[in-house]
């Protein structure tokens, strides 16, 4: 940078030579301000989503930059919400990017006093083992009168109501095939 451009970049110079003698606006504008862009404009992609909190079903736009969620805001196209969000919906980015989010499997062995780490594959296999064992142990073929029961009452499930329909469908389908009858959901509560 030459002296000349350095001088010309000096706001005092701009004050003296430009339209803003009091140094209120144009002259005082910084390089940072000149370079400012909305990060929604520079996002790599936008996903059209739906707020995960209550059942109003407000539209959300999820902006992604470098594989990270950079902004979540209301979708003005939604005839339900018209781009608006409540404080919870507005906090969706903080929800999905929360530092408190647990992103690894945690395991507490019987009588344990602390969490331990566990590999996801191992956990899946351990859970499958336990499901099959509990099912075998508590299986009921028929009732006292010989009518079919085809079930286990040794396994329970309680699901939240923020699960997708597709997820609920697979849960119900698998549990029904396993004979695991005792599936419940927030909808009961």
């Amino acid at each position: 940078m030459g002296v000349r451009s350095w001088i010309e970049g000096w706001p005092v110079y701009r004050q003296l030579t430009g339209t803003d003698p009091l140094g209120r606006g144009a002259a005082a504008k910084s390089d940072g301000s000149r370079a400012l862009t909305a990060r929604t404009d520079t996002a790599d992609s936008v996903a059209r989503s739906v707020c995960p909190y209550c059942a109003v079903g407000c539209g959300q736009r999820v902006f992604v930059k470098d594989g990270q969620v950079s902004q979540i805001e209301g979708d003005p196209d939604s005839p339900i919400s018209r781009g608006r969000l409540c404080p919870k919906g507005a906090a969706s980015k903080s929800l999905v990017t929360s530092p408190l989010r647990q992103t690894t499997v945690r395991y507490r062995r019987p009588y344990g006093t602390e969490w331990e780490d566990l590999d996801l594959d191992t956990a899946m296999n351990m859970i499958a083992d336990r499901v099959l064992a509990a099912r075998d142990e508590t299986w009921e073929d028929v009732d006292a009168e010989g009518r079919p029961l085809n079930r286990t009452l040794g396994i329970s499930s309680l699901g939240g109501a923020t699960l997708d329909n597709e997820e609920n469908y697979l849960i119900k389908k698998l549990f029904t095939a396993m004979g695991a009858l005792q599936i419940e959901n927030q909808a009961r509560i």
Partner: protein
Amino acid sequence: MAEAHPVGFQWVMEAKRRGAKVFHVDPRFTRTSALADSYLPIRAGTDIALLGGVIRYILDNELDFREYVVAYTNAATIVTEEYADTEDMHGLFSGFNDDNATYDQASWRYEGHSQTQTTRDSETQRETAAGLENESHGAPVGGQTERDETLQHPRCVYQILKRHFARYTPEMVERVCGIPQDKFFELARAWTENSGRDRTGMLVYSVGWTQHSVGVQYIRTGAIIQLLLGNVGRPGGGVMALRGHASIQGSTDIPTLFNLLPGYLPMPHHANHPTLDKWVDSIAHPGQKGFWGNARTYGVNLLKAYWGDAATADNDYCYGYMPRMTGDHGTYQQVLDMIDGKIKGYFLLGQNPAVGSAHGRAQRLGMANLDWLVVRDLFEIESATFWKNAPEIETGEIAPEECRTEVFFLPAASHVEKEGTFTQTQRLLQWREKAVEPPGDARSELWFFYHLGRIIRERLATSTKPRDRALLDLAWDYPTHGPTVEPSAEAVLREINGYDVATGRPLASFTEMKDDGSTVGGCWIYTGVYADGVNQAARRKPGSEQSLVAPEWGWAWPANRRILYNRASADPDGNPWSERKRYVWWDADKSEWTGYDVPDFEKTKPPSYRPERDASGVAGIAGDDPFILQGDGKGWLYAPTGVLDGPMPTHYEPVESPVRNPLYEQQANPTRKVYTHPINTLNPSPPEPYSQVFPYVFTVSRLTEHHTAGGMSRTVSPLAELQPEMFVEVSPELAVERGLTHLGWAHLITARAAIEAKVLVTDRLTPLRVDDRIIHQVWLPYHFGFEGLVTGDSANDLFGISLDPNVLIQESKVGTCDVRSGRRPRGAELLALVVDYRRRSGDLSPHYPPQVTTDSADSGPDQEV
């Protein structure tokens, strides 16, 4: 609504701007009340008395929308003379069976119908929450009825209704609810004035109505008013359920509930549904009108979706694989079974019962007595860490080194890290696109269950046990993609929608379904969401480019209808009731129904169509029967069957109440579901003695700033800071009475637990004058627990477990308690405090109020002890 559904409230503000009057009924003055034109403070648990008063006001002054009522409701239908009303039976209906506290519904039936209406007795219906099946259709009843359209017949529904609600006078409303008569009249007047061809009124409720031991009847009462005023099936009308979770509607449509299968098909019962035929026949009552007559089709399509090629006509489409219910297998029964050691393993999928379910202590003790527990969530919620951080650690009831439960915490993918549909509160399915990959080990439920199923099936591949056939024959071949081998949600949605087996062509409507195995459909009411092979739920045509109905945004079940029963928006002749309220009408030139929405009627059936005398099913629906999923095509002011606690709503006190029922000798809902487990002891209520030990009414609800059990808000900094601490709201008068100071501590005690909270003394709560007694109510948010950025005691710990008989939902909006200044004791002293209260309220043996109190010694108003 402004508190818990602020963005939905924009439409209330829009209406207000155009001159609508907004009434808000709530035990405390909320953000909604602040914007309402009139606020009615009410004693929690007395809404039926208020609404019953409105019904009486309508009927006494003949303010009903008569043309609508006669044509579209069962007001004219005549009921058998065996029926006897609460008027004559101290608050019970005819048919009450003392042995199992249920009604034999036979005497409630329509004149001319046979006595055996249902294949299941009422107790089985209660145990299996059969009322839930009616979310998509009415209870089974024959289509042919006797009617008196002059409404003068003494046994016509109109007259029965009038007699039933005769004692719900304004004076009685005041005595029961604590609502002054002026306020009542203001509400009744405004509601009835907005009725008729030109005007409608809308009713909005939330879990403030459902979480009661009489919850279903609350909503029935609202529906009766809306039917009487002609507010159903019309724009600007209806009964709007504001549900609290992103896809809680979807969770009942495609249920993860023990008693339902997708599309509100009942889970088979061991005694009532031994075969496929018995099962489908029990759903479609022979002779009933309407679309529900095709139950066999819906059942067969589901079985085909589950077991694919293995399901054939020869093996009854694998119906034999289905597990059978024998009774109540609901979440509260499960928890009590956990405490008793009957349950081995427990999956928690984005749910936090340690905070969110009634009787938190029972929930935590149950979880501490499992073999294993799988928690899938975004955060380490209370239900995942109960073994080291629960309040029971401090009291010594749970010791980590003695607690055997093996806990797997599996991180879940958030809503932006997976794709799929949510069904929002107006039955609208909206597809979410995936924005990013889930972090670390986080996975969707879709992934978890697909792979769990895959692993289990691999383990069993060589099994010859008959019980494993259902798993091995399961249609479980979903395409997967991506680095995490995620199953395709779209493929699942396509299966839910259904398709033609031979061609693979997605079905456009459930009317295309066949009962011969040639089509597959996982949830018949969702058929059409994948019509033309297009994900209709992903449609995003901007609202500004569409009509107000916005039919091209997402997809609503059934058949993309936005207002159900919208045939009722036209008069019996098919013309709009008025220009202002035009919505769906009969186009005589084209001979079809048309309008802004998809008509909820056969498109070309003219208004003049009258069925043959014995026609049933769809053909039985007349051209002026808008309620096409009801057995008689009518809106039900009176439910001749299917509602277990009575054909009409009746005010019963909450199970825990400081007040003797001023209306009837029967104190509380006689048919409620009771759990007599030692942990579930209840506070005494009149007419029992010692109810004054728990003199105050408490109620709980949400804050705008938090979500349910707090797992998605107390963990999020910008929300946590907005409501950073557990508190209890009390009126200035109660503060004086109990020596509470603003921002000081108080603790609340019930027979189950004692919890502490900061005190907010506020004018927004008021004492009420009930039957010449001053009743104080306190309010608590139920969001707090012991994990997260902000913590506090859980309000749900205070509740016992008493359930509505129809749907087995717990009464967790009202209870009685004592309030004391200062912090609660710690450790063993805490248990001692609760024990002391139990001793003072009777004795230490577990206590359950009697179900029937009609023969109680004191039948008068509550005695002061």
